[in-house]
């Protein structure tokens, strides 16, 4: 027996090591600590490993950042004055835009209140520097230099100014956290296609691409359409940009469904700084409220200035009828038809002139409307007047008086009652 173990020492050790790790893998599948994604002992191992690595990562990152920062600052100062002026002008313009949007937002809030839908605003964010990665292309996680000391907690959304990036997976120390990027296979985010309003779940695939899965085929989904966070996952802020539709293709693994490949708004492969959303509130944060108030005051000033200018400048007064009603160009009579028939405007009797049970009144072609100006009168040829055909049994002859009136009398400028001018009938 002893010789067996001595003889097969190496293979036995290999089997034992592999078996131990398989058991370790199996034990991690379901057992997790509340508020964490790992089991207690596994979390401890991750803490040790990251505790060993992160000081070096922070140090290297600090050195590199320091060099880049001082270098870029030296050159950046040369154009600061010009940039500052441009930015000030842009701030003024954006404030005006914001004032207009604030009104829409208020209306939206009122409607949301009616629907009891709660809007969440970004209340607090913490800027964090990326200090490391997982090092493999099968696990898309990042490490940042902010942790429990900065109020970071698991599942907090991580964004950049371009769009969503991921969420906090694990807080590994006072100054270290692990982020799970949205292009990882295990991540998921509720998204909404902006134009078509189709909802879906965004996740990463093996290639590190973003895709929306389990979407029913829809011709309206076109490349280039914007995708925003739907807020349905209770993690990412609603309406925040996610990306654009890159390609729509058939999903071979889920037959009737399609795959929507997405180009992320944020460059997930080159993240340097990110914002971790540490607080969301249902009221506007102080800064945003102050900004909106400033914008509104500015817009009010602009509005008053525009009104003063409008009073001082000569204006074209609208045409007014003798009764005092303004004549809107939209309410003018349409031009007279060249060849009036029973489908022309005014050829059919009004509904209130009809009587229930009565025979269907015979439609007449619209009478020729006299041209308003002599020039128009000259250029518009009068339509040929058809001679009425002899009456039949089904179609009695029209009353003579109105017919004579139509033919003999020149048509009035105003549209006469079509009922009074029956059309000549055509036998079929």
């Amino acid at each position, binding site marked *: 027996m002893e010789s067996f173990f001595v003889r097969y020492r190496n293979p036995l*050790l*290999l089997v034992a090591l592999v078996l131990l790790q398989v058991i370790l893998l199996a034990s991690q*599948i379901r057992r997790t600590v509340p508020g964490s994604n790992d089991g207690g002992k596994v979390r401890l191992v991750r803490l040790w490993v990251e505790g060993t*690595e992160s000081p070096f990562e922070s140090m290297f990152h600090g050195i590199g950042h320091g060099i880049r920062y001082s270098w870029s600052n030296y050159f950046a100062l040369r154009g600061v004055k010009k940039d500052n002026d441009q930015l000030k002008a842009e701030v003024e313009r954006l404030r005006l835009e914001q004032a207009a949007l604030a009104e829409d937002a208020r209306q939206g809030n009122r409607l949301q209140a009616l629907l009891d839908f709660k809007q969440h605003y970004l209340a607090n964010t913490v800027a964090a520097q990326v200090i490391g990665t997982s090092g493999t292309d099968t696990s898309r*996680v990042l490490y940042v230099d902010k942790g429990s000391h900065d109020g970071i907690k698991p599942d907090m959304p991580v964004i950049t100014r371009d769009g969503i990036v991921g969420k906090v997976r694990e807080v590994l120390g006072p100054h270290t956290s692990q982020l799970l990027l949205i292009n990882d296979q295990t991540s998921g985010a509720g998204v909404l296609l902006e134009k078509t309003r189709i909802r879906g779940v965004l996740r990463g695939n*093996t290639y590190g691409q973003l895709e929306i899965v389990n979407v029913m085929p829809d011709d309206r989904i076109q490349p280039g359409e914007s995708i925003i966070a739907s807020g349905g996952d209770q993690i990412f802020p609603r309406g925040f940009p996610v990306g654009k539709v890159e390609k729509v293709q058939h999903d071979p693994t889920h037959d009737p469904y399609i795959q929507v490949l997405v180009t992320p708004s944020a460059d997930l492969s080159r993240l340097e700084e990110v914002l971790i959303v540490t607080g969301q509130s249902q009221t506007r944060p102080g800064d945003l409220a102050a900004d909106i108030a400033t914008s509104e005051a500015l817009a009010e000033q602009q509005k008053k200035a525009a009104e003063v200018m409008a009073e001082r400048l000569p204006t074209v007064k609208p045409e007014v009828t003798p009764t005092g009603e303004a004549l809107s160009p939209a309410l003018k009579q349409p031009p007279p038809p060249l060849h009036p028939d029973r489908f022309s405007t005014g050829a059919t009797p009004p509904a209130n002139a009809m009587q229930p049970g009565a025979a269907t009144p015979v439609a007449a072609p619209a009478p020729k409307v006299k041209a308003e100006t002599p020039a128009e009168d000259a250029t518009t040829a009068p339509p040929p007047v058809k001679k009425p055909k002899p009456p039949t049994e089904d179609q009695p002859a029209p009353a003579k008086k109105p017919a004579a009136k139509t033919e003999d009398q020149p048509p009035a400028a105003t549209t006469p009652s079509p009922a009074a001018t029956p059309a000549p009938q055509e036998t079929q």
Partner: protein
Amino acid sequence: MATLSYTTRRQAVEQTFPLAVMVIAPLLAIFIQAYLPKIFPKFAILDLPLVVTLYFALARRSPVYGAILGASVGIWQDALTNLPLGVNGVCKTIVGYMAASVSMRLDVDNQGTRLLLVIILSFINSVLHLCVMRWLLNVHQDWRWGMEALRPLLNTAIALPIFALLDMFRQRS
């Protein structure tokens, strides 16, 4: 150019490295592997810890050492990812063991043989990784032929300078 050659099996087996090198080199490889993709995202296709594991397993010619080193390096790598601990551990344990076992039968001091072994074992590592993900963890993962063919070649390319560097620390007892 001075080359190392061994006339007896005993001489070949007993080549060792300073303890500091044997500890620091794998840790440094893991650190560089975790840090560099932040600056060069494409660097994530490489597997520096695997290259270092293969080097020491081939050089020490001890299956036990190769398996233990592979397990340690793999679990350390797993701790930096969001994958369960043991995914890389299982792969690198087997690959480390295989490398050391092969080195007992072949002359792995030859640079060409070593590089060929790196290509083959790197590919085996990728296959094992896929197997663990698919059948042990039930995580769907596509097999990317282009990527998996390129990875061993790139690992071999990076192994050339690393092997040359580590050869400088060899000790003959």
